[in-house]
């Protein structure tokens, strides 16, 4: 057994252990902390699986922003836990038995998958010339399966609509989430002044690198969103009220541009969502830049929550 395999087994065991802890620990707050740690380690697993793009996404969105979301909810819901009754032991035992059965079936099915495995990697590499981007994952996301990516942007937009629809009637059109205040001379405010310039540069770099190396709109957008959130949480910035035209424009810019480019392709080129080879790279990068902005704003607003305060302070 090589050192790499031993490392992988240890990593898998720790990941599993954290997963178990997340499920069984009685306090919800601890479970969220466990989940964040789990998310960071899973990002390592993705690196071991040679999927660095996914590792970045998992770390930024799965573990990072998802963790912030869960932690915030756990803090606000702290007393709600007390209302729940415990599931009876027999039910838990049978659920455990079923889950184990399911795990066995899944593991069995994965282990007997055919060899050599079918793959689209050669096809994706062969067609990469059409877009002149050399990151195959970006190619799949932006060209070959652009439809899924566009629909998923609409999913994000609908999540925003869904979250906003939970506002109480008097707060409609107001600012999402509570107003945060922090000691202006405190260390958090210091961080919030120091970090965003760096974070924004890193976010843009990750977006830009996405054309040829791991990275892209999601990962860059998540970093930008976290910078914005830092400013919001320290009170340096406030969430914009949801009735503002510009914030709505930013939120739909990504899917909107995608749709427009798609329709232009339908009218003047081969097909919906096709790019003329000469313009493919600038077009895709243009969509990606817009999408990064949209993703950053969407993720930030999803974390901020439903409108709670009227627009005037």
């Amino acid at each position, binding site marked *: 057994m090589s050192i790499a395999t031993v490392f992988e087994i240890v990593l898998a065991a720790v990941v599993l252990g954290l997963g178990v802890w997340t499920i069984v620990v009685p306090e919800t707050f601890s479970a969220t902390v466990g989940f964040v740690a789990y998310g960071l380690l899973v990002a390592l697993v993705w690196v071991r699986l040679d999927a660095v793009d996914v590792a970045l996404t998992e770390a930024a969105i799965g573990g990072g922003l998802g963790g912030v979301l869960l932690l915030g909810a756990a803090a606000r819901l702290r007393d709600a836990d007390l209302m729940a009754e415990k599931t009876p032991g027999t039910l838990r035992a049978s659920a455990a038995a*079923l889950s184990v059965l399911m795990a066995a079936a899944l593991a069995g099915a994965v282990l007997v998958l055919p060899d050599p495995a079918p793959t689209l990697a050669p096809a*994706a590499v062969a067609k990469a010339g059409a877009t002149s981007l050399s990151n195959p994952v970006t190619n799949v996301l932006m060209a070959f399966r652009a439809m899924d990516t566009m629909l*998923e942007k609409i999913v994000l937009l609908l999540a925003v609509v869904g979250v906003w629809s939970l506002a109480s009637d008097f707060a409609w059109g107001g600012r999402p989430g509570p107003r945060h205040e922090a000691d202006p001379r405190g260390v958090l405010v210091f961080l919030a002044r120091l970090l965003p310039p760096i974070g924004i540069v890193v976010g843009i770099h990750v977006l830009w690198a996405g054309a040829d190396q791991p990275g892209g709109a999601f990962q860059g957008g998540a970093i930008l969103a976290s910078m914005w959130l830092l400013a919001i949480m320290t009170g340096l910035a406030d969430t914009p009220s949801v*009735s503002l035209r510009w914030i709505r424009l930013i939120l739909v810019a990504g899917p909107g541009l995608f749709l427009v480019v798609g329709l232009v392709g*339908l009218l003047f080129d081969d097909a919906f969502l096709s790019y003329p080879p000469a313009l493919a790279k600038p077009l895709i990068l243009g969509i990606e830049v817009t999408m990064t902005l949209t993703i950053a704003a969407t993720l930030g607003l999803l974390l901020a929550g439903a409108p709670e305060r009227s627009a005037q302070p």
Partner: protein
Amino acid sequence: MLPPAPALEAITTPSGFLLVPSIAVPLTGVVLAFVLGDRYVRLVAYAIIPLGLAIAVTILVALRQSAGPLVYLLGAWPPPLGVALRADGVSAVMLAATAVVICAVAVYAHADFKDTATRAPFAFWILLLAIWAALDTIFVGGDLFTLYVALELLTFAAVPLVSLEGHPDTLRAAIRYLLFALLGSVLYLLGTALLYGGYGTLDIALLSHRIQAEPASFLAAALMTAGLLAKTALFPLHLWLPPAHAGAPAAASAILSGLVVKGSFFIIVRLWFKVMPALPGLPATQLLAALGASAIIFGSVLALRQQRLKLLVAYSTVAQLGYLFLMFPLAFEASGKLEDGNALSGGLLQAVSHATAKAAMFMAAGSIYARLGHDRLTDLHGLVRTMPLSVLAFALAGIALVGVQPSGASLAKELLLRAAAERGQWWWAVVLEAGGMLTAAYVVLVLAHALVPTDGRIASTGPALHVRNIAALVLALCSLSLGLLPWDSYLAVSHGSVSGFFAVETLTKTLSSVLGGVVLAILIAPWPHPDAYLTRWKMVASILGLFQRSCHRSVGCLERANHVLCQWPAASMFLLILALLFGALMVGAHTFRPG
């Protein structure tokens, strides 16, 4: 060696481009409505909806003139790397039905969701358009992962509609709906991962050529089916449906009950008939239909026991969804495959006629609620004098659901009965007839309450809106006349054998199911009921009372069982059990195949 895919599937057909706007136009509406915001959302919706209807009609026409299905390769990338859109007759019918129901709902919702700067209209119109886009993607999507994203789009659009009123009860219903739907879609996604691992593609046409009877594909089929059943709320996975559909505003309920549950149902049909017709085997189809039969019994009986009209209609949806699954064993050919034929056409017709009729029912119920400020069944006496049009719309929709000629349901029933006779599976014919009787029972129950004369007039709190009633009426009439349409260019329907209208035989059949329904309604429903009118025949009343008591006892058992099934742990465990059961049955059918 894998057999090559047929050449026809891999190129864009001449009118294939029509499939793009069927998705892109509602999506454009979503984006525009979001940007323009509060004051213009309804305007945007009213601009988009006729356009969408026109596209659906154009697709119907184009498909009639085209030799095979319409195919469109997105970005001109052929599968497996790219994603294709495909529309056959079945898709076209569903597209058109969706467009019609959305139009009617939009007219109905005109007054409820006015252009004012409040959140409800903003959310409602955007979500309506989003549901439309998601459904159209499901109907024409040719790739299992695109279908997954579309399913999630559908869920994300449907859940906020449930909680639009913002009461704690509706919020609870929405959370439960969201979590159960997410569980379902994760299982579906798990299935797609296994399929990709096995065959290197998620394209439906390519998969259908490559798929083999292997452990991974069995498990994938079982997981995906179970997950989709959870989203369709087939018994015993219906825990989320009644509170969600009864709690939403009426216009939203019409969409949720009429259309949204059909999305996941349609993917099951695609999966079983298109992707893996040879995989399920007869036992699995029988299990599916058995669940459907239980849904009919539980849903109908519980509908009869409800005190509120909207809950009654919601439980009726549980029952009618069961109806949709009776076609699976009937479509199982001697070749060991599920094949297009009378059974599939019957099932889809059922889906379409339920979509229209149920939407109309919810609209009528919503009008009643809006006018009276409540929907307690026992306080609806004399309603027919106050709101004749709403009661008429409800009655027509009910008649269409029961399957009175020439409704779509009657044609569907006819086709299914014929398939049952061909296959020699008489027991499903019995279920079909009993189902009609049970449907008749709760329709009669509501109508009886509405028609009972009272001394006092019903106090109405809300305004009377004729537009609403007309929308509901049109939809109900639509459902009632579906049997007259020329289906044969889209579905496999052989017209000649459909018996003529108003023949003595069909009349007696209809009459007998309605009479049976009346008896069931008297026996099962908890109303303080026409006993009063029977005092002249004391003997009859006492015998009736005897039957009634024994009926109530068994119904009580049913209700308790339902209560247990509607607990979260029980329902989610049933989901897993069903997945494992489907897997085992499929494996068993292939292991012990004769010869």
